[in-house]
């Protein structure tokens, strides 16, 4: 088992290295740190000097290795715009994003598993069809539109309807200016978490339902019933345990993608996390932030993929042996 994990980790290293090259090349190709300068009147005179200062006149490979060395050492440079240390910026924003991810995943997992199990147990019931329909809607709906509509109907409509001073749920930022209490935090948390959960729940519940249905038609379920095990226990003990295996791996992969994938949610709700950081940096041409940002998110994606692999081995005894 341990060798399996170690081997998978070792295999990830070259992936990260290749990814770093890819990311570096891509960033070079699509961004222009000199963009601002080109617009100024002294452009023709200032640009060569600036190019040299930034090291952009060196061959690409040299630029890459120099950057890579700095990156691994932890020197990620300064933001062009805010002049703040990039590393602290990113880790600070990462912390905020992780909050959203934790709440979102917890909520989504519970709902998705419950819905999936119910739908499999009561296949073709009215509620099953409803859940299926809703998950289709969830998968077909643009997330940003859901965010806007949720603001409209959960923030403004109740506020106007009940003539409140402040809305019940907030739609901007992490907390109010003066109130840093838990309740205030929750009121700010609800809408972004709801928004990010829509897609997760839609996909996961359908998958769990499908997984449960597959599992429940297995021979070992019939054996369990032949032993005299109650239907509910067969479902929850024999069925769910097996159906969760593929779901957890899918969840791990999806979670890995969330670290760089909350751009919409954070931008609309003004949540100061990784997604918002990226958006601002891209708009303002702050290339010093973009490259480390891409690397960090890539590492998370690779890391969670690795976790998915390992989880598989942990949860399914058949895999452990190999």
């Amino acid at each position, binding site marked *: 088992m341990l060798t399996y994990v170690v081997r998978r980790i070792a295999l990830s290293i070259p992936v990260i290295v290749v990814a770093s090259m890819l990311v570096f090349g891509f960033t070079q190709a699509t961004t222009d740190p000199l963009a601002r300068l080109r617009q100024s009147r002294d452009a023709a005179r200032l640009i060569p000097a600036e190019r040299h200062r930034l090291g952009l006149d060196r061959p690409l490979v040299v630029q890459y290795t120099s950057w890579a060395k700095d990156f691994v050492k932890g020197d990620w440079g300064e933001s062009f715009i805010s002049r703040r240390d990039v590393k602290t910026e990113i880790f600070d924003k990462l912390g905020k994003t992780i909050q959203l991810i934790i709440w979102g995943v917890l909520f989504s997992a519970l709902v998705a598993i419950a819905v999936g199990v119910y739908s499999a147990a009561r296949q073709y019931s009215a509620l099953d069809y409803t859940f299926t329909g809703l998950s289709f809607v969830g998968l077909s709906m643009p997330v940003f539109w859901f965010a806007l509509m949720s603001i409209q109907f959960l923030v403004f409509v109740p506020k106007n309807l009940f003539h409140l001073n402040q809305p019940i749920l907030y739609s901007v930022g992490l907390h109010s200016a003066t109130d840093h209490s838990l309740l205030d935090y929750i009121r700010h948390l609800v809408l972004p978490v709801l928004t990010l959960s829509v897609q997760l729940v839609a996909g996961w519940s359908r998958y769990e339902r499908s997984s449960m249905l597959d599992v429940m038609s297995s021979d070992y379920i019939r054996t369990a019933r032949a032993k005299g095990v109650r239907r509910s226990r067969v479902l929850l003990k024999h069925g769910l345990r097996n159906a969760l295996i593929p779901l957890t791996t899918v969840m791990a992969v999806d979670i890995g993608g969330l670290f760089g994938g909350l751009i919409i949610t954070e931008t609309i709700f003004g949540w100061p996390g990784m997604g918002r950081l990226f958006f601002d940096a891209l708009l303002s041409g702050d290339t010093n932030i973009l490259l480390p940002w891409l690397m960090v998110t*890539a590492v998370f994606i690779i890391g969670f993929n690795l976790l998915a692999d390992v989880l598989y081995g942990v949860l399914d005894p058949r895999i452990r042996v190999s």
Partner: protein
Amino acid sequence: MAISDRDGLEAARAAATVGSGAQALVAEQTAERYAKSLEVDLGGGPAGPGGRDREPAARSQWQLFWRRFFKHKLAVAAGAVLILLYLLAIFAPQIAPYKLNPNLDAKTLLDARHGPSMKHWFGTDELGRDQLTRVLYAGRISLLVGLCVALVSTLLGTAVGAVAGYFGGWVDQILMRFTDLFLVVPALAVLMMAQKGLAGKPILGHRLSSTNLIILILSFLFWQTIARVVRGVFLSLKEKEFVEAARASGASSFRIITRHMLPNTVGPIAVNTTLVVGLAILTESTLSFLGFGVQPPTVSWGNMLAQSEGAVGTNLAYLVYFPGLAILVTVLAVNFLGDGMRDAFDPQSTH
């Protein structure tokens, strides 16, 4: 058990970039089961002699597909809705009640800021522009993007997947590692950077419109889903005897791929192409909403929502409803259709 298949995990990663890992995993399993179902549909009952490796008769498969498909009333309805939507988009200039860019005279401005009414079914914006008209015209762009991305990525993905699946070995490994690289970076971020970096710059000698640029970069994202599915089916089909028989009779690889294997891959390809239409529309609208997609003055549903974002919470909030609903209805229809197609090709999937 198909779900425990390790390769399915690879597919999960593929779609984790854009959709849910769950979607692609189910797509990959469909490909597997589809290849297996070809075995089941062949030959007679249990006593049928050697039916396993015979080449399936393409025509009877189609009949089977259509029969099963039409049993799914929801999918058929969804297909009808899609055809209707595309017709509305194609004939938008003829159907639209008003001009897309009306003269901003007193008459138009008088009608501005009105909610849905008999005169303006979807209301008007601050400049008095009829929203129904704008939604119709925007539909042309969004639906076009969806269709084009699906077609281009299917062509690309099928070619790569077929080669990887047929030749196997190191060709397969290299191609698959290459597609894997696409999974490692966050898709939306990369798309945004690509759009910003390429906008306005000539590609292969041409300056692309923002719409065409979006089609290009989205295709570059979606081809790998199709490539994986095609590769999966090809890997299964490669083991079948009819492929060996064809090879033994001297057919070239190209001929085998195109005449024998591809026709049997049509099912999963069709399903995934359909689903890509929906994903492409969603991604395009998201990018346009953020400002990194279709640029004004071209209207798309996404950039309509970008402009009306500020209307939330005001009495112009209705400006947000309709473009979003349009996206929802379209993609929903696409997904129902794709789901029905998947069922029709692979009736053994648990549903």
